[in-house]
């Protein structure tokens, strides 16, 4: 095999966590190589090593037969490896053309930018990715899918030998995905080697030649995709069948309505939505990223403004203008963005837990550190948070333990209804199970639980009922007896595929 890229025993360690260990892998010239793994399996770390953002702690990487040791992303680009990251890195206030050519703007005398050459070259690149749009358009005016294509066009601008795509379809609609795949196939036909990272199992068969599965930072296997099935991949990714992971507790019967939302309207453009969750019920919220799930939950919680709508708790209408109102009425929100919105990363575990109700561990405004430590230790033990002590900064905890700290802070406050937005994203399997168990415990204690997730099997395993968002609308309310992956997915896509 003619390997364009080969990794030998590559490892990367972070304080308190082994992100990658002993990964050896060869990418053949011209192939499309899929890398699969759960959140936290080490995919992102691997990419960041290739991108020159991190440097490996052990092992070696060779590219085109030469040792490959990029110190910065710029080094990586110079050697011909281009990476389209999950988070797009475009400059919103510059034009498409300027973004595309930023590293090598065509110049006339005295360093003046040659506008004509700039735009004509940009048009050529945009054609490559099938994007028919004026290159003078500012990037901020584009949709996410278009930005993604601009990123890919940018990656092509430097005649790259190896293109790495990190979960490019995460925010795309099905027609956009189709177009992206057509482009990938065309690039492959031109001889570009592609590494494609994803956790959407169905789509990888369409474009991939071989697949490498990572789990907990280790390489599980590299195989030809031909002959494999989705269940095979799942087994490789999580190490066993998924059937028993969630522990659905049939003994819990939902009671009266805990929280109901009627005609919640976020803006003049979005439709009004209504839904309710009962005491002891786990209500799933499905939908694509960007379908308005998160936004609806944030509006309900008072985190973002809303135009209209009535929120009732135990049948009584409550006014929620800001998160503090929601919290006062017993609502809790575990945000999608754990680090940015959920945690005080540089503060200790105990301080993160007690932030929701410092009144409980103080008298006349004076903190009682002993009571605080006792309360924190209690919850840390109860949720089995793995930390060296409650004084450890949460930044240095693993994703799963960070998430447990977020849960602990709401348990400390005491809550009647929890809204959990992607509670298991970036959480390893062990901690994930513990979170599921905790949710069942809370359900048994008659809390209402709203669980937003992009992981459909997770919702189907955990929930009594699933409501489905599609383009800001609630398009379905599916009871457990009628759970069916195809059906729920088609509901989620419903509003996007309609002409």
């Amino acid at each position, binding site marked *: 095999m003619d390997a364009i890229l080969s990794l030998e025993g590559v490892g990367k360690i972070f304080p308190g966590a082994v992100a990658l260990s002993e990964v050896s892998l060869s990418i053949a010239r011209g192939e499309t190589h899929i890398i699969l793994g759960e959140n936290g399996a080490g995919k992102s770390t691997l990419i960041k090593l290739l991108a020159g953002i991190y440097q490996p702690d052990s092992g070696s990487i060779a590219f085109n037969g030469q040792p490959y040791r990029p110190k910065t992303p710029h080094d990586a680009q110079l050697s011909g490896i281009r990476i389209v990251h999950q988070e797009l890195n475009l400059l919103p206030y510059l034009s498409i053309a300027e973004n595309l050519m930023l590293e090598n703007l065509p110049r006339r005398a005295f360093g003046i930018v040659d506008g004509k050459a700039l735009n004509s070259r940009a048009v050529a690149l945009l054609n490559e990715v099938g994007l028919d749009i004026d290159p003078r358009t500012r990037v901020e005016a584009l949709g996410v899918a278009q930005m993604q294509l601009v990123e890919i066009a940018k990656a092509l601008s430097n005649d790259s030998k190896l293109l790495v795509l990190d979960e490019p379809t995460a925010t795309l609609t099905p027609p956009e995905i189709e177009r992206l795949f057509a482009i990938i196939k065309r690039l492959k036909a031109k001889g570009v080697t592609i590494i494609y990272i994803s956790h959407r199992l169905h789509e990888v068969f369409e474009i991939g030649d071989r697949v490498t599965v990572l789990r907990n930072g280790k390489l599980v296997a590299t195989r030809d995709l031909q002959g494999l099935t989705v269940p095979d991949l799942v087994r490789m990714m999580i190490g066993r069948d998924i059937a028993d992971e969630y522990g659905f507790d049939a003994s819990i019967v939902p009671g009266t309505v805990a929280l109901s939302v009627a005609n919640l309207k976020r803006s003049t453009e979005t439709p009004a939505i209504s839904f309710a969750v009962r005491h002891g019920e786990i209500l799933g919220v499905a939908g694509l990223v960007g379908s308005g799930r998160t936004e609806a939950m944030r509006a309900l919680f008072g985190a973002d403004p809303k135009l209209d709508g009535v929120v009732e708790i135990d049948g009584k209408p409550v006014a929620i203008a800001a998160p*503090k109102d929601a919290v006062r009425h017993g609502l809790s929100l575990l945000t999608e963005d754990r680090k940015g919105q959920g945690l005080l990363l540089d*503060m200790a575990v105990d301080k993160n837990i007690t932030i929701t109700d410092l009144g409980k561990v103080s008298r006349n405004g004076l903190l009682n550190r002993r009571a605080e430590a006792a309360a924190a230790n209690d919850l840390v033990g109860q949720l089995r948070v793995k930390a060296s002590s409650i004084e450890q900064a949460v930044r*240095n905890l693993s994703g799963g333990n960070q998430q447990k700290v977020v849960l602990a802070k709401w348990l400390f406050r005491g809550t009647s209804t929890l809204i959990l937005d992607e509670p298991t994203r970036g959480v390893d399997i062990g901690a994930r199970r513990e979170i599921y168990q905790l949710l069942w415990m809370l359900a048994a204690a008659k809390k209402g639980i709203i669980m937003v997730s992009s992981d459909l099997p997770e919702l189907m395993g955990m929930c009594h009922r699933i409501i489905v968002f599609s383009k800001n609308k609630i398009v379905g309310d599916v009871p457990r007896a009628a759970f069916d992956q195809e059906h729920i997915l088609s509901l989620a896509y419903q509003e996007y595929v309609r002409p």
Partner: protein
Amino acid sequence: MSETSQVTASAPVSPGRAKFLRFLVRDAGVLLALVLITVFFSATAPYFATSGNALKIFVQIAINTVLAAGMTFVILTGGIDLSVGSVLALCTVVGATVMIDESLSPGVAILLALLACMATGAVCGFLNGWISTRWKIPSFIVTLGMLNMAAGAARVVSDNSTITGLPQSFVDFGNLIIGGFLPSIFLIAVLVIAAGWFVLRFTVFGRMIFAVGTNDEAVRLSGHNPDFYKIAAFIISGLTAGIAAMVYLLRLNIGSPIAGVGYELNAIAAVIIGGTSLSGGKGSIIGTLVGACILQVLSTGLQLLGVGDNFKPIVIGLVIVLAVILDAYREKLLKVIR
């Protein structure tokens, strides 16, 4: 990402030792620097290690220490207050105007002047905080505006002239050296620092100041109003500017509309040298006191060494930059220890 493994932080050192190491790196570092600088000048600069010089240093750091105490609160929340110098100027003319009112007995006049200074400072601080949170404008800009406005107001109030003739008892108190070693105005500075230390360390309010500076969005989503704490921090900075104005009157005995020029930069420098992070959430007010000491010891020491007034600012500027560089290394070290 680093959120990978199930193996969690088996800390490289035992908790007790880690705590001690953390203390050494985070808190004792600046103190050690102060001791080293002091020892250096004691050995090299003539007259440096005399009680007279020590007293002079104590007197000279009082104003900056008080200003920097309030500044610490603002910087901990992630803001900055550029207005404290001219707010101090405004407060000196307001305070002096009240104090020279002959219809009042000296005791009452002094008390009213103190209240007037603190109220003036608090109003300026409130405006800084309210405007920057209400319209989401960086406090850098808002307080830059306040710097000019307060300076202008100071001229209007004083009719652009210095105000003299403060009560004799007030002037005497300013010159008082308690027990022969503790200047009254240094005592005031120490009391302000002690109060700030108590609030930051032992109260719910202090905890919230740190939390807001660490991640105000997380604080908001936890059911609090971060703007309240940001505004409160600016009010505290205004209050300390008012108190610093009284210290100024005690020390120089004149209310002056051109007082305090550049004081904000010295206050910020003391806070930063003291190890408080400009991005908020990390720092200590004891560090601020030490930072103020370092600045003054350097300034006095260099002068006694015969370093000219032209070169002195160059050295002090270098020290400020060096402190921030060291701070970046300190963060790295702390991460390893944790």
